[in-house]
């Protein structure tokens, strides 16, 4: 049961930076998956104008920020550097393309999430009820593998277009055609 997860994790990490000592294997795999999302998302035209970076914002609460930084170090998407930064207040949200909120931090950041939902920001969390709360991508473990679910309606509301490939790879897609 563990073997495919390991294999998947190693494959995902193979082109990333040397594995960090911190974090669990699960969080490393999750970081690897989250780091790929920007490649399959199209932000509204104005959101990236004049921006040199694609900002992956992380609400502290687990080792995600650290693992993500390891994975995306030096990554570029369409000429923009992928950057990871920490977000705690509403004001920090500006300029974020992706917002990861750990399940443990959800209760204390409901307002932030609500705020983010109104912005062209791909919200990601491993909280089980994340999609019902207006989130776009939820990570979960299925048969020992990290999979993700997508709420296409929320994405559309946020002005994001998610690649059909990503939707195909998703464990489930809710919210109608996207």
């Amino acid at each position, binding site marked *: 049961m563990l073997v495919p997860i390991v*294999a*998947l994790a190693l*494959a*995902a990490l*193979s*082109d990333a930076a040397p594995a960090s000592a911190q974090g669990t294997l699960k969080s490393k795999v999750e970081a690897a*998956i989250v780091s*790929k999302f920007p*490649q*399959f998302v199209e932000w509204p035209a104005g959101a990236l104008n004049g921006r040199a970076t694609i900002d992956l914002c992380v609400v502290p609460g687990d080792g995600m920020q650290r693992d993500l930084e390891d994975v995306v170090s030096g990554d*570029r*998407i*369409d*000429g923009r550097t992928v950057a990871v930064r920490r977000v705690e207040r509403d004001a920090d949200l500006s300029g974020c393309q992706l917002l990861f909120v750990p399940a443990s931090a959800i209760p204390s950041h409901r307002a932030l999430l609500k705020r983010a939902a109104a912005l062209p920001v791909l919200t990601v969390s491993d909280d089980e009820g994340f999609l019902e709360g207006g989130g776009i991508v939820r990570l979960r473990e299925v048969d020992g593998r990290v999979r993700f679910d997508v709420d296409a309606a929320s994405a559309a509301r946020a002005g994001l277009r998610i*690649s059909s*490939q*990503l939707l*195909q*790879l998703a464990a489930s897609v809710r919210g109608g055609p996207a």
Partner: protein
Amino acid sequence: MRGWFASLPIHQKLIAFVLAVSTAAVLAALSGLLAFDIARFRSSAFDETQALARVIARNSSGAVLFNDPDAARDILQSVEVKPSVSRACLYAATGSLFAAYRRPPAPPCPAVAEEARGWRTLAVVAPVSRSGRMVGTVYVERRLADLPGRIFVTAAAALVMLIVAGILAFALARRMQQLISRPIVALAGAARAIGRDRFELPEISAPPDETGELVRSFRDMVQRLASANAERDDLLRRERQASRLKDEFLAALSHELRTPLNAILGWTQILEATDPDPQMVAKAVASVSRNARAQSRVIEDLLDVSRIVTGKMQLSLAAVDVRATLQAAVDVIAPAASAKRIRVDVAVPPVPCIVQADPDRLRQVLWNLLSNAVKFTDAGGTVAASVVEGEREFSIAIADTGIGISAEFLPFVFERFRQADGSPTREHGGLGLGLAIVKDVVELHSGTVRAGSDGPGRGATFIVVLPRLVGAPEAAPPRATIAPLTRLDGVDVVAIDDNQDALEILGRVLVSAGAHVRAFSSPESALADIRRAPPFAVLCDIAMPEMDGFAVLAAIAVLDRERGTTTPVLALTAYAAPADREKSRAAGFRAHIAKPYDAAELVRLIAAIRSPSSQST
């Protein structure tokens, strides 16, 4: 093969040519089409496969990035709908195989993805990229199993087209080759017929191109050949006839020369063998003289013919009164006519009938016609001679009541050597030259002569028409008609001839005319005598041993220069050809007298030396 083809008739050759050419053309076109079709098929198969590979690459980047081989396999599985795709493989950026699809019996995916264009399979490679980065490679292999089938179908269609085109070409060729082959076949047939000497050419229809040109040229050629053939046959026939005429002529000539000779020799032998009485001598002399003249005339005629044929006959034209000439000729034949009890009537206009003519020749013409008339008229008949005055000409008619001329022979009476009866047993003598000479001489005078006869036994008429001399002097001196009795009384003449007989006769002729003659058989002694006393004239033979006539002439010329005298030298020779005359005249002889000569003529010539307008005959 080639020999077999060469012996085919031309229409089959033409059909074979057309079939070969059209088959080759169709074959080339179809092969090209097939090759093009195969190339296009391969190219479109490649493009199709490449498009497929690109679609797969595009759809599988997520699967590669999210490391989801199951999803990748799903994507690859989608090629199942294309039966021609045998393998589809997805490789990670590292080159390791990520996911694979294969349709049995295709082998597993290759270790390295490489594009390939084989005969049985095509393989294409497409990169998998995402956000400008290459994340993997797609390899799609397509089998070309359907190609042989396609080729077979196309080839079968080509074969059908080839057969149809062949049948069409054959049908067209069979009809169109006739345009070319029909005239040629007809020509060949005509040529075969001509090979068998049949010169009728059947009507050959041909188009107005080179074939028509060929037919027309061939027809022209055949016509020319036919006419040339006819001409040749005609020429050959005339040649044979001319040859026969010449044979007859030679026989007649021999006869005409021998007959008088026989009389001459006979009388001479009688005179030699017997002691003749004066009466016999007189008879002998008359006979010898008559026969010698007859022979001389035969030779004269021959020479005339020779002159006419070679164009050397020269006329001494003068204004002549035809009446006088006719009368003179009638006078000559009168004794012969009266001997045969033939009446000769002469009817002439009361005014002079002047024409321009050589009087001697004109007299010869009329005498010929008159003597013919007498010769071919039986005893008791009539010969009528008349002159009729026309506006521009005079017609002299000699009509007789004699044996006449058959209608068949009439057109040929004036031809040389032609006689109505050419057989050796013929009744009438003669060479058959008389009328030919008449015609030639009359024509030399710009006149015409024609003969008419109502048939055998009904007489004949000969009419000579001569142009009237306009602006002529009223009366011309009838020099030829009235031969003055010329004498050489007291004239000093030197005669030279190495032949003693000839010298003797010449001497007697001159002496009888009253001349003083010094006769020499040796030119040297003659020259010595001339040096001693210059004569009035010299008569000299040409062919002599040691010193010929030309040498004598030259020696006399030297003497003349020394003394300042002029001694006329007359050549007297048996060389009678026109060339000989010309030669002696050029050498300086005053006259050229051919042996045998007429004594009176000789005397007249010597006498004529006195006047500046001296002539020779």
